[in-house]
């Protein structure tokens, strides 16, 4: 997923995203005394990610699976683009709704390409069109084309999850259902997949129902978050910023957690902060000139870049001797992407035990420097009111 945000890049099959509405939906499983979902009403505008979040067993999966009729509601209805989802045969309906689950559900007996081609094949696409689309999708989710002929068992968990996403996107469905898609993955890979998915979503703009029980993931991924409490009752349906700033009640407040201020870091992106300008130098530059430039610099260390502007190393005072900067010297640079959320970027910076991280664009070119101070300032803005309402920007970074 190294491609940048191109406007309106839905490919040749681009279909408009669908809007989704739960209308007083109730679900009581036979044999259960109380309904799993008492009455759920939410509206998801086209092209947005709606996260269903809540403690285990509160009915998130149940709610999601009623959308593509894997589960039928006991009462109420679900409308897709204003039309009840019961109007169509379940199989037809499901072919137009992307479906991603935590266990991936990849077919072990089919190659990656065949897995991705599942729905196009059901819809009777020509082999040429399927082949072209498969290649395109693997690239879209950042998988090497050489994976096409492998079997799922030959992939890592993260790679399998990407295939799951590619497979769900195959026919560019107007609506996607994702049940804890990154739940069973190690934290570092999960963070990467989340970022890549958000970048992908900025490109394809599908309507997505995203289930998680992780509030941090909800805040990061959601345009809107539906916090559910046991019994399938909606505790609050709001944007991530609203949720953090004004939780509707004690349940939500507890669920969101005491570290709400820290969580606000998940709302901002690196690019939203004011970045500092580094002193860019190249190996072989005259040391005197560098020293001169440093005198006026915000960041007290010169940053070595390569011919394309990518960061190579930090230099400190000890490195600045002799006539010219010696090849290959300096210390490692912590690099964050301009689209990373602040929380992740900050933790990267802390992990490297440095003050500064180089911020790069999608090509890896340095566009500025993020300092730990800048993050701290964002966290606790100076002035009389220590907790200042954050701007209403949120999650996906349109």
């Amino acid at each position, binding site marked *: 997923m190294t491609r940048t945000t191109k406007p309106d890049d839905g490919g040749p099959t681009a279909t408009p995203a669908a809007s989704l509405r739960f209308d007083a939906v109730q679900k009581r499983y036979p044999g259960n005394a109380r309904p799993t979902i008492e009455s759920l009403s939410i509206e998801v505008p086209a092209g947005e990610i709606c996260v269903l979040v809540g403690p285990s067993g509160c009915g998130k999966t149940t709610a999601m699976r009623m959308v593509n009729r894997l589960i039928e509601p006991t009462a109420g209805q679900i409308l897709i683009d204003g039309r009840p989802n019961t109007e169509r045969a379940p*199989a037809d309906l*499901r072919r137009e709704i992307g*479906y991603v*689950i935590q266990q*991936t559900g990849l*077919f*072990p007996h089919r190659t990656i390409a065949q897995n991705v081609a599942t729905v196009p094949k059901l819809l009777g696409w020509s082999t040429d069109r399927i082949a072209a689309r498969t290649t395109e999708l693997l690239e879209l989710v950042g998988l090497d084309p050489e994976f096409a002929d492998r*079997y799922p*068992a*030959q992939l890592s968990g993260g790679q399998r999850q990407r295939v799951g996403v590619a497979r769900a996107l195959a026919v560019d469905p107007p609506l996607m259902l994702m049940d804890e898609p990154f739940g069973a993955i190690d934290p570092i890979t999960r963070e990467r997949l989340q970022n890549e998915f958000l970048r992908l979503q900025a490109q394809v703009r599908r309507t997505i129902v995203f289930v998680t029980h992780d509030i941090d993931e909800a805040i990061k991924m959601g345009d809107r978050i539906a916090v559910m409490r046991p019994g399938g009752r909606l505790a609050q349906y709001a944007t991530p910023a609203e949720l953090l700033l004004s939780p509707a009640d004690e349940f939500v407040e507890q669920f969101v957690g005491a570290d709400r201020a820290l969580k606000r870091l998940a709302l901002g992106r690196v690019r939203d902060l004011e970045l500092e300008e580094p002193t860019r130098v190249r190996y072989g530059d005259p040391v005197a000139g560098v020293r001169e430039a440093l005198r006026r610099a915000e960041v007290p260390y010169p940053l070595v870049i390569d011919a394309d502007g990518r960061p190579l190393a930090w230099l400190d005072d000890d490195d600045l001797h002799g006539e010219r900067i010696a090849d290959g010297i300096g210390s490692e640079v912590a690099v964050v992407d301009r689209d990373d959320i602040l929380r992740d970027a900050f933790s990267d910076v802390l992990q490297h035990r440095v003050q500064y991280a180089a911020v790069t664009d999608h090509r890896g070119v340095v566009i500025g420097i993020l300092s730990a101070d800048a993050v701290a300032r964002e966290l606790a803005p100076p002035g009389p009111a220590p907790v200042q309402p954050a701007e209403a920007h949120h999650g996906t970074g349109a």
Partner: protein
Amino acid sequence: MSLVLAQSGGFVRDRSAGASGQDACVARDGVCPSWIAENFDRYVEPLQRHVLLTVVALVIGFTISFALALLAHRRRWLVTPIVQLTGILYTIPSLALFFLLLPLTGRGFLTAEIALVSYTLLIIFRNVITGLDGVPADAVDAARGMGLTDRQVLWKVEIPLALPEIAAGLRIAATTTVGLATLAFFAGAGGLGDPIYADLTFKSNVLVAGGLCVLLAVVLDLLVLLAQRLLTPWTRAATA
């Protein structure tokens, strides 16, 4: 009782056959290479018959068990009665079954096949059910979630993934049937049981007929294994 049923089919040791130098060996009931070489073609017809008995029993047995398994896969309550019924068939001694069938179907191929088929049912049925049960639930859920119909889920996901288990059942059934088919002789259906029971004391005879049985069992086993390997390339990829 075997004497009542037994009909040697003319397969009596011809002690005079063979070169005169072999007579001593044959008279001792020993393993006589030249006797075997000279008389080998007498085993070809029983072998062909044995192959026919086995393959027909396997094809019919597989068809019935597979159909029953598909039926029971969606209607779980059927599993127990089917296992019980085929279990009873499995435990009736084959000779007893021949006797029970004689008044109904008479001597011959049909009687033998009914007995042989009934022995395969339990093995194959259980393995197909086990195979279908072992299909990862998430693959089935994803298949349904992507809009495969029930039939497509069955044929495109569940059955392919159950193939290793199905093949395992077929291999056990094949080996068992090759062995049991030697008893078809008692139902007058021929096969390698003919020469074996015609002269159990003659080592050359038992060695050739028994050896052909083992060979047939091995060949059938390898054939099923080969078919399985060709049909399930992913099982090797997983461990590679």
